[in-house]
């Protein structure tokens, strides 16, 4: 009985906390204040949190990049990890999205990120319930006054990866491995195909979706098939599945030091993933700077300019995308050519399509 009463008291305190914090966040002047760490329901201050997809914050890819943004922003403000500062919750499946978002909202975080388009519905639901909390969805669009949507022009980054692959391939065969077939990954593919076509129209890209973001073994099998068929550069946009692409490339490199096999990484700089002894199979990585976008939105929100109900699209111009340092894997003259294309995209001379042209 006492436990139940305690539970009731807890929920009352939390509810009161939510209301107090709501009053606090309406007041734009308090943005610069240091939050009271470890104390829920304290008014004032600003705090942010994120809900990961199933990948978790060490997926060496998308979630990791988002967490990097949240963490760096928090550290810059001198916050601590936890309630009132910055934090994250990991989802083990789609059924956890609403729960995790709700739990964070109940801990009075002012701004909560949902990482990944799969969280669209969950954010829509929770944002309608927790009207005083600000939400932000990465890679998806939710139309609600307290949700800021973040999209990327993945096609522009994919285009540069395509140019790099097209110029660097020796066998004139390149491959693309996608995670799940969805609009976001299709933008990577569309850009990549277009980029390859821009430099070498005759190349046919071997494009394949494995159907999951967390199945490294499928990525490895698919990469194995591609490399065996003569493909020498594979661009993956497959999260954890892509780790299998790296291991296949590394095995081939290890077996034969002179093997010409490359992987183009995705989202984060995946140079570390490609290390085999003194060699490296990472040609470059297509950076999707989720961290830049995360910090940008956090900054706006903290200063009272939260772009609620809007969709912010990050492209090459906004430093939202780009190629990672190739660390010598790509020669300077090729880099110069890539730069030229990048400039053309940035100033609008080249418009990269979002969708793959449907095969007839």
């Amino acid at each position, binding site marked *: 009985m006492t*436990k*139940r009463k305690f*539970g*009731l008291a*807890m*929920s009352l305190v*939390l509810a009161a906390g939510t209301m107090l914090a709501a009053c606090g966040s309406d007041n734009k002047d308090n943005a610069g204040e240091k939050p009271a760490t470890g104390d829920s329901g304290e008014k004032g201050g600003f705090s942010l949190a994120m809900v990961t997809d199933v990948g*978790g914050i060490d997926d060496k890819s998308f979630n990791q990049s988002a967490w990097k943004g949240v963490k760096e922003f928090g550290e810059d403000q001198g916050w601590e990890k*936890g309630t009132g500062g910055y934090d994250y*919750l*990991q989802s*083990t*499946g*789609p*059924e*956890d999205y*609403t*729960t*995790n978002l*709700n*739990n*964070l909202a*109940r*801990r009075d975080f002012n701004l909560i990120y949902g990482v990944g*388009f*799969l969280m669209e*519905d969950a954010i829509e*639901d929770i944002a309608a*319930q927790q009207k005083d909390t600000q939400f932000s969805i990465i890679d998806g669009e939710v139309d609600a006054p307290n949700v800021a949507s973040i999209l990327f022009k993945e096609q522009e980054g994919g285009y540069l990866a395509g140019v790099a692959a097209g110029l660097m391939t020796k066998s004139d065969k390149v491959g693309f491995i996608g*995670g*799940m*077939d*969805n*609009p976001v990954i299709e933008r990577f593919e569309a850009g990549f195909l277009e980029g390859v076509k821009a430099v070498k129209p005759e190349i046919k890209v071997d494009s394949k979706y494995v*159907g*999951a*973001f*967390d*199945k490294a073994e499928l990525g490895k099998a698919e990469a194995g098939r591609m490399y065996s068929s003569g493909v020498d550069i594979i661009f993956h946009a497959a999260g954890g599945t892509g780790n299998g692409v790296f291991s296949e490339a590394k095995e081939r490199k290890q077996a034969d030091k002179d093997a010409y096999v490359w992987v183009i990484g995705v989202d984060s700089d995946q140079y570390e993933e490609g290390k085999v002894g003194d060699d490296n199979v990472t040609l470059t990585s297509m950076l999707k700077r989720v961290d830049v976008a995360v910090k940008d939105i956090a900054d706006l929100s903290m200063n009272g300019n939260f772009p609620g109900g809007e969709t912010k699209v990050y492209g090459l111009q906004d430093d939202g995308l780009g190629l990672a340092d190739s660390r010598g894997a790509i020669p300077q003259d090729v880099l110069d050519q890539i730069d030229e294309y990048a400039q053309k995209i940035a100033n609008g001379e080249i418009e990269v399509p979002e969708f793959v042209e449907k095969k007839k």
Partner: protein
Amino acid sequence: MNSMSNRMINILVPMISIFLGLLVGAIVMLISDYNPITGYMALWNGIFGDSYAIGETIRQISPYLLAGLAVAFAFRTGLFNIGVEGQLIVGWFAAAYVGMAFDLPKIIHLPFALIAAAAAGALWGLVPGILKATLKVHEVIVTIMMNYIALHVVNALIKTLSGGGFKLERIHESASLRSEFLSNLTDYSTLHYGIFVALAMVVVMWFILEKTKTGFELKSVGYNDNAASYAGMSANKNIILAMVISGAFAGLGGAMEALGTFGNMSSMGGFTGIGFDGIAVALLGANTPLGVIFGATLFGSLKYGANNMPNEAGIPVEIVSIIIALVIFFVACGYIIRVGLIRLRNKKEAK
């Protein structure tokens, strides 16, 4: 205490099992440098902490109930239905599709969506049932393969129906199991009326098995199909029937997700796991309707409450999974504890 009745043992066994599981879980937390007391407080609050948590816990129990019933029902006829996962997925899809594609008054639409889910699940159970009955193909193999067929067929259908997208549109309000009332009652949780559907099915299973001639035949085939055939029952007919009813339960489990929890269906990268957990739920509950309620409650509560351990106590998801697995492991080992208790009793009585 010196005359421990059987009833006493029946109550003590699960309690001791859960306690032992929690104890070993506490050791795991201590070793990995987390405070077990905060950890378990978080687990408790995650399950019963406030009306929201209770609502979500009940919501999580509903699909487990139906998945458990599906496995248990097939078991009673001596069939091992590993295909609950696939049957649940096609049921999910059928309910989501009917909920989205039609626009009917609620009184027709909701039952229609539920029946569609049950029918889809039943169809998915029918195939292994027929193969088992006519060609003696082992149902375990067929049902496992049917899981993959379900997963990929449904993914492809979602893609086609949504015009290249990754999820179906939301179902119409008229097909939804959600309710304003339950949601307000539980502080905006996603609790929906599905739990009543699930509990009704518990009664249905009990009724079929205990009160009908069909149920008697199904059980007879489960005990000994040769004897049942000799007594003039058709083993083949009953095998097919058992798989169909089992599949229908599983399909309804999918409807819980489609019409209640999610309100639509997104293409899936892998299995939901509910169907596989259903096997454990059924076994924990000794394949009886009441036992399944116990198993599903345990599974649902732990599964949902565990979410709060990273949230409130900062314990990583991986450690939480170990702890939950330990609790279930010890509950499943209840038999050993039962034997121990009976020995203890006999010893005392001998003195």
